[in-house]
């Protein structure tokens, strides 16, 4: 079990969100979009531009700054 920031994951890597670092506002926004603690995500694309993750079949684009603050257990 490894713990790392979302931005360090490669395409097809899967993991569960263990922590979101950052203000309450942004945490709440992510929760509301379905990115709450414990959910499983799969990285679809992570090279340039926002990271695209798959959340139960749906695609979310997450800015790189934000992706650095989302901690994943892979």
């Amino acid at each position: 079990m490894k713990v790392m920031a979302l931005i360090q994951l490669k395409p097809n890597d899967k993991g569960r969100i263990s922590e979101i670092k950052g203000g309450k506002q942004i945490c709440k926004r992510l929760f509301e979009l379905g990115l709450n603690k414990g959910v499983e995500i799969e990285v679809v694309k992570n090279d340039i531009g926002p990271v695209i993750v798959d959340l139960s079949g749906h695609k979310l684009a997450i800015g790189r700054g934000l992706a650095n603050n989302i901690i994943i257990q892979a």
Partner: protein
Amino acid sequence: MNTIALVGNPNSGKTTLFNAITGANQHVGNWPGVTVEKKVGEFKFNNKIYDVVDLPGTYSLGAFSEDEVVARDYVVKGNPDVVINVVDATNIERNLYLTTQLLEMGANVVIALNMVDEAKTREIEINIESLSKNLGVPVISTVASKKSGVEKLIEKTVECIEKKSEYHPLSYGENIDKEIKTIKELLKDSKADYPADWIAIKLLEGNKDILEEVNNKDVEKRLTFLKDKGIDYELEIVDKRYDFISNITKKSVVKPDEAVVTLSDKIDKVITNKYLGLPIFGLIMFIVFQLTFKIGQDLLGGIVESWIETFGVFLSKELVLINAPEWLISFISDGIIGGVGAVLSFIPLITVLYFFLGVLEDTGYMARAAYIMDDIMRALGLQGKTFISMIIGFGCNVPGIMATRTLETKKDKMIAILINPFMSCGARIPIYLVFISAFFPEHGGIILFILYFLGILVALIMGKIFSNTLFKGESSHFIMELPPYRLPSFNSVIKNMWQQVLHFIERAGTIIFAVVAILWILSVLPLGVEPYSQASLLGKIGTLLAPIFKPAGFGTWQASVSLAAGIAAKEAVVAVLGMVYAGVSEGSELIVAIQNAFTPLTAVSFMVMVLLYTPCAATIATVKQETNSYKWAIFISVYTFALAWIASVLVYQIGSLLGF
């Protein structure tokens, strides 16, 4: 009259369902937050008419964006009899989050479980009875795009108007439930239109507008007390809502272990590719403008023009035959046919442009454009979503500016508003086309593309400058849903296009007609003067303004008057040019007159001016409305003019030096 509200996440098919229920001619988009306005329709059931209100698509009913506040306020204060909550069956957990909030409010909810066909393709199984039983509200499965399930939904909704579902508050765990009770006790004496449970939850979530509205000293004290003790339930409440949801989905939803790879996923591999994304985006925009020009102008443009010409000649002949007074003939043939007619001849072009913009929106490509542009926009202190409002601005700046509502920080929103007018709207195309036909008939598509590109470039540069000066600080985080690609619905694209064209014709018939009429009066006063001559009032105003434009190479009274009229509506520029130069409907005469009055260089300089200068009155009014300040409305009018003037002077002066 009974009222029904439609609530749902962006891309849940809410607007499509609204159309299916009401049959209203309305547009369905695919980028998050397309429904920025409150839209109302109606349907008839058993000879009774019911109102339906389409609320903005939101993920939540907090106070995060204006859309959320609009939707929330309507549900609690608008007292709809039933709230139809559109839930995307392919993404049920996240969609149910909004549902939990509706249940908290005590709204009378009916769930439309939409896109059940897509859920099936993705091998997601949903037990509707179990879902309905556990949520405590009726659930009807629908496929809005195929109108299936809609009848049943209407039937159930009408049934629920009579029979409200019971209000059962959610449980948020021992501590929070206890705190809610405490606050409810304190609230007992204050009058409020909302359920006390809901107010208590909102207060614990730190909602400031509700706190203000409640205006209760004891409650404020209690919240300060909690804060001082370091107790904050805000995120825990969100967690508890998800606990509630996952308890329900565990019982009612079965998903495949591996998500099914859809065609949409495969397309995205190419469209959002690191190397291909940007070139594909550029290529798509290039093709759109080439096709718009080729089909709208070369293929169809002449047709409407010749109709108007024939009609104009016919009308003048008839007027002469019935011995109409000379001033009336002049007003009709020079003023109306020459002015309004010149504007109407661009209908085919506007139609084609709106068709393509509609297709881009409907397929879901807009969200990808925002994604692809995010990197570049971020380097400029902006963010990718700003680009969506810019692309919409190509159609018209008014909806473009309204689309900035989906931006989350004030900084992003303000900058997006201030740079939107540089996006060349549809009404400016006719002006370019007159000059292109006069001087660069072989290179129309390229010139248009360069002008649009210049508009984008100026917008981005100004964005960078604003973000370093007027609006410092961090740009908001980028987080955005990439909705699955969908085949554009031919119906909705055509409907939207038709609406826009009607709007264009309506403007030609009202604002532009009024401008043309006023200008015609100015052109024949003082009495006895030769119409449209420099001695007329119109000529005098133009002469007064002309020196301003001299350094830009088009310091003629005609050009100056046309630009001034363009502030009322951009279409009026062509109308006025038609009146003052040709005075007749025949497009070719206007072109010849333009060829005599301008040079290729001053034509370019004039087009740059038109591209960048003060937006039209409708846009300025929208800026006032969106920023809630006259200051910004005045600012945008002045700074765009200054910038446009500098740019066209540079074009002319540098061009002259280079010997053009």
